[in-house]
């Protein structure tokens, strides 16, 4: 049985346990139908031209883990940003781990999707927001059909959440191959501010395929800063579908740091539903071996006077492959839009490759749009300059690559994350750099 058939038939079993009166019932049924019709995307589809899922779909994934698997904090501590006080929502093999988590209902809800979906007091929020931003593509639909667990975060009006929230998805390795469908919902009310860190981490080399959907709603003047740390084992693959719906004067930023994983696809979508919105999409990708990272972004400028800033840097070694497909749509009403997009790449091996494609669809006439892609090697004259001052080749390379990704890190607002990412980069480049950039 191929994976699609297996998934569809397990849906029937899954659906049996669910409450027929839930508002989600129809949504799920519709979603599985969509997935059944469309199936997994193939390279024939324009948006998947450079990313083939073939190599990761041939595993015999468990769609539901058979047992609950506990982890000890000391074994996974290193995956947390542990030098800051934070809320934590932690999952092991797709199930909530209460003893690793630190949730709250004190003025804000930092808790679980499963309880939000089942408890009446969350019903209104669920009805207003659940699946309202996600598109009805096949992978998001697949997630919607099975949506059961993940983070549920609701920040009330004017609330400034000082502690960042960490969402961690661990995979214990107790299943020989596991497929996960985490579903996160984040609602940030008027004038509230929240910072979120998300990470997926597999603890063994057993294959994992995560198909995650995160919906974020930033209401009027809300500020949301989201950090995705993608540094998983090279047997784990991630399809991240993130949908951000912004209301007027809100500011949302997503930083995606992609260093690990076998195949990573980031579908990052911003919808600007109000005036004077600011959207920021930044990413640093540093991969090697046979890793593959695909950034597929969309910024939809719908209303006037909004800005978007995209800045993605990639460094590709060995046989690694990268894709950047950045789509910006500026509707006719979205006058005075300011849309900036940059994608700069360095190939440090002859066998590495990157496909980069900006896609601008502009229907308004009074807009400022700029985009630029570069693909280059490390600057030889800079290398010689540095080496002639006594900096060895390896360190010189690292310093150049560091400097290259520097401006993406400069907008990270949590110093501990910056340090962590700096360390990962140094590690990745195999050097010890004795200063912060």
């Amino acid at each position, binding site marked *: 049985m191929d994976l699609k058939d297996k998934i569809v038939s397990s849906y029937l079993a899954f659906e049996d346990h669910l409450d027929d009166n839930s508002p989600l019932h129809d949504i799920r049924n519709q979603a599985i139908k969509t997935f059944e019709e469309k199936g997994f995307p193939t390279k024939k589809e324009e948006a998947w031209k450079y990313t083939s899922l073939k190599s990761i779909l041939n595993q015999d994934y468990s769609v539901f883990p058979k047992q609950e698997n506990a982890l000890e904090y000391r074994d996974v501590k290193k995956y947390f940003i542990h030098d800051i006080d934070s809320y934590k929502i932690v999952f092991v093999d797709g199930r909530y781990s209460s003893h690793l988590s630190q949730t709250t209902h004190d003025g804000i809800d930092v808790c679980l999707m499963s309880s939000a979906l089942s408890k009446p007091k969350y019903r209104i929020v669920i009805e207003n927001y659940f699946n309202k931003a996600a598109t009805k593509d096949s992978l998001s639909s697949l997630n919607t059909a099975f949506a059961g667990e993940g983070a549920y975060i609701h920040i009330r009006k004017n609330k400034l959440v000082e502690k960042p929230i960490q969402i961690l998805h661990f995979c214990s390795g107790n299943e020989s191959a596991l497929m996960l469908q985490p579903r996160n919902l984040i609602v940030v009310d008027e004038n509230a501010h929240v910072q979120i860190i998300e990470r997926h981490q597999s603890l063994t080399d057993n294959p994992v395929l995560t198909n995650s959907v995160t919906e974020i709603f930033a209401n009027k003047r809300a500020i949301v800063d989201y950090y995705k740390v993608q540094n998983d084992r090279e047997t784990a693959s991630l399809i991240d579908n993130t949908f951000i719906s912004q209301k007027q004067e809100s500011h949302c930023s997503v930083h995606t740091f992609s260093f690990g994983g076998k195949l990573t696809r980031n579908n990052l979508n911003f919808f600007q539903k109000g005036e004077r919105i600011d959207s920021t999409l930044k990413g640093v990708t540093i991969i090697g071996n046979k890793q593959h990272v695909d950034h597929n972004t969309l910024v939809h400028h719908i209303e006037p006077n909004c800005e978007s800033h995209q800045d993605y840097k990639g460094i590709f070694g060995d046989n690694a492959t990268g894709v950047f497909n950045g789509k910006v749509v500026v509707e006719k009403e979205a006058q005075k839009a300011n849309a900036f997009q940059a994608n700069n790449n360095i190939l440090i091996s002859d066998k590495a490759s990157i496909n980069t494609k900006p896609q601008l669809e502009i229907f308004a006439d009074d807009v400022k749009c700029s985009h630029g892609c570069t693909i280059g090697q490390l*600057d*030889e*004259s*800079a290398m*010689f*300059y*540095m*080496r*002639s*001052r*006594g*900096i*060895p*080749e390896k*360190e*010189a390379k690292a*310093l*150049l690559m*560091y*400097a*290259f990704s*520097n*401006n993406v890190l400069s907008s990270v607002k949590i110093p501990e994350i910056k340090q962590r990412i700096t360390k990962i980069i140094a590690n990745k480049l195999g050097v010890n*750099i*004795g*200063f912060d*950039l």
Partner: protein
Amino acid sequence: MLKINNLHASVEDKSILRGINLEVKPGEVHAIMGPNGSGKSTLASVIAGKEEYEVDKGEILLEGENIDELAAEERAHKGIFLSFQYPVEIPGVSVTNFIKTAINETRKAKGLEDMPANEMLKLIREKSELLEIDRKFLSRSLNEGFSGGEKKRNEIFQMAMLEPKLAILDETDSGLDIDALRIVANGVNKLKSKDNAVIVITHYQRLLDYIVPDFVHVLHNGRIVKSGPKELAHELEEKGYDWIKEEVNA
């Protein structure tokens, strides 16, 4: 200190240096002059270890040791410093971080610990004052957006920090105004001792009034075609290179 014997070098099969002989002893200052394209910067790069250039024949000895097989950084660790004719911009790395890295990597190569932070700071302060460099300048990205003169001054600042045995200054004077020229030359002179040596590549006598050479060499078509005392520089300034070219061709 430096001995070059019959050095031939080429790039992409194009021969540029065609038999250079040069000996520089500790405490000496040598000036190399010569028309555009004669191979001055190439010679400097070959000594500093730029891999793009192929050494086809001959040898370069530093304190008796053949450095042909050494990488650029290893030559730097042995005390060779090249002040670039065109310093390279390195966005995202500040002057301070760059020089710290260069110093500590050099120390590491010699088996020394990193320089303590306070000592480093003191050294940076001292040398930036010597070259009259504003402290704010040091936190800017290396060479990015620097004016021509600022770049050159910054090269000599790095030289002052690294205290090389053999400094090669490739047209450090070009782009400097009169005051800057004096400051830079003064910096170079302060670093001079009986144990180190300087090779000055220049088109102008002006710099040599400040950094007075013991020898002047004329490079033409990849060869040193004439050497003489410092007065030779005056003669070149007055008469140009044609008479030398004629001498060579005769």
